[in-house]
């Protein structure tokens, strides 16, 4: 059995809300509010949810771009939850991220060559000529010609920019990459190329991915394991095929039933249409009890008072819902 590369235990990340001249704290945005899961080596773990779900914050907190408010992050056996910046530097080589918007994730004033050299310079890897060769090699891997070295980001198409971003993430030879909606700003045909490419890279370099997305059809195509988040909490998670075949949580069912599909075949695979009313509540002021109760068509009285626990329904399949107890 493959061990877990990443273990997340009761992770919390709150962002303080301040008011007044003296910036006194008046509350918290509970972006991530007690999330636990494992990512096994070599697998693609997908985190899905809508805005305010906390999926991006979870990914960034695991990478220690934020300091967790509470909880543990164990990466490759080492606990990194409370490490200081200097101690984290060595981890920067093994965990990386690809951002959603390729335009803002590349410095417009830097050429591709400099963007790719930067990680090597920061970590003082190799001599200048060795670095140059490494950059050329990476360009080959991301399937861009050598003439791209001296171009600026604004001279590249969306797909090409994203390849450079992926190249930057790969050049340090990481083990773990967080992909935050890497293709949502790309067209369908470009997306297909990039996703296939990302899958090949995973096989070739034995990478572990955390794939964050709101596109459920895409998630089905790339992940082995899915976690569904709502307002800072994980409400359901399990192996991809199982979760899609028989989703248990009403929110998961609603999400899956809302996917626009392109064939009758897929239509039959969707759960029955369960339209949910209302808006997503403000993460600064989540509803009491179960977070989803204000919009749940099956709400019971207990849902308004008690937050449901995460239960292991069967091996590796978890749900947190009072309907399933």
């Amino acid at each position, binding site marked *: 059995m493959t061990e877990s590369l990443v273990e997340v235990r009761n992770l919390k990340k709150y962002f303080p809300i301040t008011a007044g001249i003296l910036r006194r704290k008046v509350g918290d945005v509970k972006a991530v509010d007690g999330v636990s899961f494992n990512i096994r080596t070599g697998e693609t773990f997908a985190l899905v949810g*809508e*805005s305010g779900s906390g999926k991006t914050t979870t990914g960034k907190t695991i990478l220690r771009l934020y300091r967790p408010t509470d909880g543990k992050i164990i990466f490759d056996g080492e606990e990194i939850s409370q490490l200081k910046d200097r101690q984290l530097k060595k981890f920067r080589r093994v965990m990386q991220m690809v951002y959603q918007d390729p335009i803002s994730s590349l410095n417009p004033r830097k050429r591709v060559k400099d963007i790719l050299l930067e990680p090597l310079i920061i970590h003082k890897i190799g001599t200048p000529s060795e670095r140059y060769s490494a950059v050329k090699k990476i360009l080959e891997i991301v399937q861009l010609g050598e003439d791209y070295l001296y171009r600026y980001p604004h001279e590249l*198409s969306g797909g090409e920019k994203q390849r450079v971003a992926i190249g930057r993430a790969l050049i340090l030879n990481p083990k773990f990459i967080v992909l935050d909606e890497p293709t949502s700003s790309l*067209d*369908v*045909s*470009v*997306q*297909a*190329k990039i*996703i*296939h490419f990302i899958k090949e890279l995973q096989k070739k370099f034995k990478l572990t991915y955390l794939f964050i997305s*709101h*596109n*459920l*059809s*895409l998630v*089905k*195509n790339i992940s082995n394991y899915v976690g569904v988040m709502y307002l800072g909490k994980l409400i359901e998670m399990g192996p991809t095929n199982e979760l*899609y075949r028989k989703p248990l949580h009403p929110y998961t069912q*609603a*999400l899956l*039933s*809302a*996917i*626009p*599909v*392109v*064939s009758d*075949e*897929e239509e039959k*695979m*969707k759960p029955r249409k369960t*339209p*949910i*009313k209302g*808006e*997503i509540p403000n993460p600064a002021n989540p509803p009491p009890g179960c977070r989803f109760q204000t919009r749940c068509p099956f709400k019971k009285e207990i849902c308004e008072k008690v937050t449901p626990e995460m239960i292991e329904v069967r091996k590796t399949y978890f749900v947190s819902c009072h309907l399933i107890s």
Partner: protein
Amino acid sequence: MSKSHKDSPLLQVKDLHVYFDTIEGTAKVLNGVFLTIKKSEAVSLVGETGCGKSVTAKTIIGLLPVPPARIVKGEVLFEGKNLLKMNEDELWKIRGRKISMIFQNPMTALNPIFTVGAQLKDVVKWAGKRKVGLREYFRGGTEEKEIEEKILKMLEQVRLPSDVIDKYPSQLSGGMRQRVLIAMALINNPELVIADEPGTALDVTIQDQILNLLKERIQSMKISVLYITHNLGVARELSQRIYVMYAGNVIETAPTKKLFKSPSHPYTIGLLEAVPKLTGEMEKGIPGRVPDYKNPPTGCRFHPRCNFAMPICKKKFPEPVEIETEHWICCHLFK
């Protein structure tokens, strides 16, 4: 297919060519677009970024910035009359009243300094009127009551609470703003609504609500719709006929069911294959890049990327051919 009352179509776009003059050259963005919408029909114009679908929509409704845009050839016939040849006064009477538009981004499409009620009132009072005299502007009073009732009724139909009238757009969520946009587009009972990427800026569950609302409203008001979208799944759910665009041309069109059952143009097939599906299939996509409109490929603009390209594809643009009932395609493979 929907049954139309009369056989004459509501909107007909014929051989539309639109060019953009830029410092670096002339971009030949639209290369002969054709489109027909019947009364009470829902049609989608589907294509990827840069294919010209937004330009087509803007040309229809008359919001194209001319210059740098230039309408070189073609007609846009609305109820038989050519919109491109109308004078400003006539165009104004149609735009906003008979043809309305739901804009793409609910976050930016509403004026932040006016309340929702004020903006809706503006639409009811002034849509279609090009010149409004001062006296007319300040008059108000008599029709106020009717207008308010109309607004309240519309809000109910888009399932917004009536207190939204006094709220500012910044106080509303994305979904609610989108509903306001829908209300603004439908309140004057138009004949045709153009919906630009409805719901793409919203979350999946909210988008679902909005699309269902749109579908329901349009069916009950018997309006025609032109959906502009890049999402084939959304087009499949919302429309009865789909037009697929590539690089400034409509390359295939068919009733929805037929299009998904027997897609025929290599681009359509490639596009459909590239869509991630719940069945776990997702092909590698289409090789190559979208062409540069300043120097587009000759003949069929797709030929550089087409696996089935023949010598004639480079020489001559394939005119539309009907391959089965109501299924048209622009491709030399089908003659």
